[in-house]
């Protein structure tokens, strides 16, 4: 379980007048095997929140813990999927997928076997020897996903993973992610700025407000799983999506 209590994050020093309050009093939990999507306007600190949970940046106040162990840095139970893919351009698909295993000291044969299994799972069989630049954006992010899954994390932290992809690729990857998740229900925190994506994927949506980032509401998504690709037409889906949009639009007009 991921537990976040009264989390506050400042960049710079507020009391010097030069800082920015990025997150204020964030309070929520993500249960084991739960898929939580996080949505909010730009500047609400959703990526900052994810990076804190990932242990990549420090925080000043509050508590962030995983199974009641406080987060003090990255850990083997977590893996991150990055918005810009963050693939190593000098090594091929296989080398990228084995990265996490290699740095954790797995033997070469073990890490290659595991990587090949995951490359197959994300549909990139036959592309093991390709360099990232030879792949489309969608394929690159599949490599990113395979790399994260290769280290067998219990928690998957996804930072707008499909945000840089075109609409069609994004839809395909969403469906594939859902299939993967049905197979093995990991705990997922998924940052997005797409309302459809937030509703389609999540068990719950966390709606955030900007400047400083706060949790506005946790919304349950009562849609049955496994979710079919045409789930978007269901009244419940439309209703939640519209509700999110009302809220997000209100935040935008409030700002401008």
């Amino acid at each position, binding site marked *: 379980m991921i537990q976040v209590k009264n989390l506050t994050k400042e960049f710079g020093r507020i009391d010097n007048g030069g800082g920015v309050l990025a997150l204020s009093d964030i309070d929520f939990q993500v249960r084991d095997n739960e898929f939580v999507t996080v949505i909010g306007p730009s500047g609400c600190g959703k990526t900052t929140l994810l990076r804190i949970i*990932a*242990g*990549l940046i420090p925080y000043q106040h509050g508590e962030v813990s995983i199974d009641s162990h406080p987060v003090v840095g*990255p*850990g*083997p139970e*977590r*893996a*991150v999927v*990055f918005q*810009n893919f*963050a693939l*190593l*351009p*000098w*090594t091929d698909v296989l080398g990228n997928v084995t*990265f*996490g295993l*290699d*740095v*954790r000291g797995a033997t070469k044969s073990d890490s290659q076997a595991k990587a090949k299994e995951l490359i197959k799972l994300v*549909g*990139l*069989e*036959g*592309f093991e020897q*390709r*360099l990232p*630049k*030879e*792949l*489309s954006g*969608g*394929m690159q992010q599949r490599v990113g996903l395979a790399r994260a899954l290769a*280290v067998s994390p219990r928690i998957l932290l996804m930072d707008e993973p499909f945000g840089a992809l075109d609409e069609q*690729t994004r839809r395909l990857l969403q469906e594939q992610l859902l299939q993967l998740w049905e197979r093995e229900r990991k705990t997922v925190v998924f940052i997005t700025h797409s309302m459809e994506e937030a509703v389609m994927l999540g068990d719950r949506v966390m709606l955030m407000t900007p400047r400083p980032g706060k949790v506005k509401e946790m919304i349950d998504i009562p849609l049955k799983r496994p979710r079919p690709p045409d789930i978007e037409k269901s009244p419940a889906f439309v209703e939640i999506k519209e509700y999110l949009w009302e809220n997000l639009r209100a935040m935008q007009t409030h700002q401008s």
Partner: protein
Amino acid sequence: MTASEAVIKTTAAKNIGSSFASHWLLRHWALEIFALFAGAVIWESLGWGLGLQWLPPFSQVIVALFQFVASGVILSNLQSSLMSLIVGFALSLIFGLVLGALMGRYRIVEKAFDVYVHALFVCPSILFAPIFFAIFGLSDASRVAIIFVYSTFVIVINTATAIRTVDPSLVEMAYSFGCRERQIFTRILLPASLPLVFAGIRLGMGRAVKGMINGEMLIAFVGLGALAQKYGAQFDAARVFAIAMVVLIIGLVGNAIVQTLEHRLTRWAD
């Protein structure tokens, strides 16, 4: 995109790319050879036509070069020059890469050394010749030292910039998988910075060759530099040009070695 579509797309792109590249390369080579040939013809005719003492015809330079090679004069001098070049350049490589990497990674090291490195880079390295002469006398050490100051700072600066400008998202990715500082260096920073580092090494190689000749002409009086000095004093332009050609070849060979290594290690960046 399905897998088979992607294969078709990438192989098609590859084929177009490679046939285009080979044509281009062929024409490029032809052009290069033609340019060299035209240069030789112009030189030859100017040499005969103008009759200037400092511009002997190209053919006389070639004859002088062959005489040098045949008499063994070049070989013995070349050997001593190359030895100091190799030692001096190797030292500047080690120093330049290590200091550059530390400066690129750690702000505090950068702050401490940046002003010195840039000052020494801008300062004409030949100014140090009398100082090295005073320290090391007429030994190989002064030549090595001159080569070192000529070539090392451009390597430091390039390496530091290369490390500093590595995509921070790759470093963050590595942290997220639990990499320690040493692994960040070996698995991310070093490979990612190689293309820019090699650019610095090539510049450093060029400067090392300059340093070798300048050092030999001004302080050590041995090797190719001393030979050039000697024939320069006799106004024997053909022989001076012949030595210049040898130096040129050393520079080109050095560059080719670095480039081959570079191509092998950074093919991904093409």
